[in-house]
């Protein structure tokens, strides 16, 4: 395989996308995985909606929805039917085309992310050798959809929400990517499947600080609660989707949960060892880890109140970015200087470094105005 021969390289890419003992051809693999991914995303989103509403209910010492079906399992279905028969409203002075296109632009890239998420060894739509780069590139497109929604609605709340999300997404993208690079350095590959294969020890142990940075930045990227300024209901009604109803609103709702699913899957793949695990089949391990990460995300949601805009920005630029840079620097040194070091020494070293850095940053940096003891 020569890098000077692009056609051959592309061909090899296709070959690598095939699992080694697959009976059909490329197109069979392609069609099958498109169906699997669509079904997986839809079913998991419904599961996530149910899981989050029930889980949040228990966090708040109440029951959550339990009237439709056993344990309220059909609640997402009931919601979907309700939302489908609602009237579709377009603001009279809104930009009709932009308003119409926005949910699609937001939804499609999120769905495309799952093309490179490995469910098992080699069980993925396309084993791109630049898998994680592809994820980073696609994940920023849905922000365009959200901004289109804010612009097309001709509504001040929508526009402010959309502006906030653009600023937030651009700021948090940087620590997010820097945290990913730390993982890539250790794994020595950008392919998601190779990264999983490299994790004989889950990278959360080798990269504890990287995991924290990635988790917080990802929460901000997908606008989960401590950072959900774009739809802050106490300030902005509902942010960018104030003017949306019916199926278009449902698409934005789907985007929200598909993004959470994507982030859970990526954290699972990058930091928790993906499909690897003893006894149980790999696909089940993947699902368990995805649900565990999602549980962590809405556990944070149930605990921490929303932060202010100035604090949000200061947190990204003054805290996460320098920490991510330092983390990348330290990881690079470790990879270059002690490539064969015992994993446990590295693990304890990294944990100690994380503790020291967090204490230093807590002592010396003010993150925006106001006094919050955290």
């Amino acid at each position, binding site marked *: 395989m020569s890098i000077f021969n692009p056609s051959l390289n592309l061909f090899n890419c296709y070959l690598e996308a095939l699992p080694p003992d697959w009976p059909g051809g490329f197109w069979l693999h392609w069609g099958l995985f498109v169906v699997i991914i669509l079904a997986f995303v839809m079913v998991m989103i419904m599961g996530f909606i149910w899981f989050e509403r029930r889980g949040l209910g228990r966090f708040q010492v*109440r029951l959550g929805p339990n009237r439709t079906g056993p344990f309220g399992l059909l609640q997402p279905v009931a919601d979907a039917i309700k939302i489908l028969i609602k009237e579709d409203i377009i603001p009279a002075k809104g930009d009709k085309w932009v308003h119409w296109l926005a949910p699609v632009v937001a939804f499609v890239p999120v769905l495309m992310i799952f093309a490179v998420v490995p469910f098992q060894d080699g069980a993925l739509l396309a084993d791109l050798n630049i898998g994680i780069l592809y994820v980073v590139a696609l994940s920023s497109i849905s922000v365009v959809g959200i901004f289109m929604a804010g612009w097309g609605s001709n509504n001040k709340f929508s526009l402010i929400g959309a502006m906030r999300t653009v600023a937030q997404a651009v700021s948090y993208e940087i620590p997010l990517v820097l945290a990913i690079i730390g993982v890539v350095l250790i794994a020595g590959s950008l392919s998601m499947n190779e990264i999983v294969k490299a994790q004989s020890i889950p990278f959360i142990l080798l990269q504890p600080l990287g995991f924290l940075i990635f988790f917080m930045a990802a929460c901000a990227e997908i606008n989960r609660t401590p950072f959900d300024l774009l739809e802050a209901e106490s300030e902005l009604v509902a942010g960018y989707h104030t003017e949306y109803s019916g199926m278009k609103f449902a698409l934005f709702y789907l985007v929200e949960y598909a993004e959470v699913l994507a982030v859970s899957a990526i954290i699972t793949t990058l930091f928790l060892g993906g499909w690897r695990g003893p006894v149980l089949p790999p696909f089940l391990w993947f699902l368990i880890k995805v649900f565990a990460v999602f549980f962590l995300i809405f556990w944070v949601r149930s*605990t921490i109140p929303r932060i202010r805009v100035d604090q949000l920005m200061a947190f990204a630029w003054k805290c996460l970015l320098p920490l991510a840079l330092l983390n990348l620097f330290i990881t690079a040194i470790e990879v270059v200087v002690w490539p064969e070091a015992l994993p446990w020494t590295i693990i304890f070293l990294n944990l100690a470094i994380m503790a020291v850095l967090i*204490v230093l940053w807590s002592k010396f940096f003010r993150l925006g105005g106001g006094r919050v003891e955290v």
Partner: protein
Amino acid sequence: MRFERYGIGIAKGMALTFKHLFRRPITTQYPEERLVTSRRIRGNELVWDREKCTGCATCAKSCPQGAIQIVTSVSTEENKYEVEKFEVDTGYCIFCGLCVESCPYEALFMGYAYERARYRRGELILVKEGLLASDERKPSGYARPKIEAALPQQTLLLDRDKVRK
């Protein structure tokens, strides 16, 4: 904002919310589960004891709303008043309980039941037979200490787990 406590505050908060996962949910699923109300609840389903009532109409006089109507006639055979009409328009009732407190023969009780929603206003007017005690219409212990002692303790505002022990 500053991480004055090195993020330990966040960790403490997370631990607290995690503990809440294992608490009993506060929700009462109403039609299936019901809380026990106060033993002295002043539910306005008034309960009337036909045997004890002498038709003195003290309750009607004490009612600030004038919601109780009594018409009596003299029964010469039994040598007492015969209650011909006992009618309470509970739509006017303000739950004050003065009728029950003023009854000299303990013949009138506040209701223990509280589900009083009706489809028609006419159904709010209770007449003689509709006022008698039954399994659905128990008397409450308001101003009636003997009935109060027999009723179960309320769970409405108390810690339900403690009451059940």
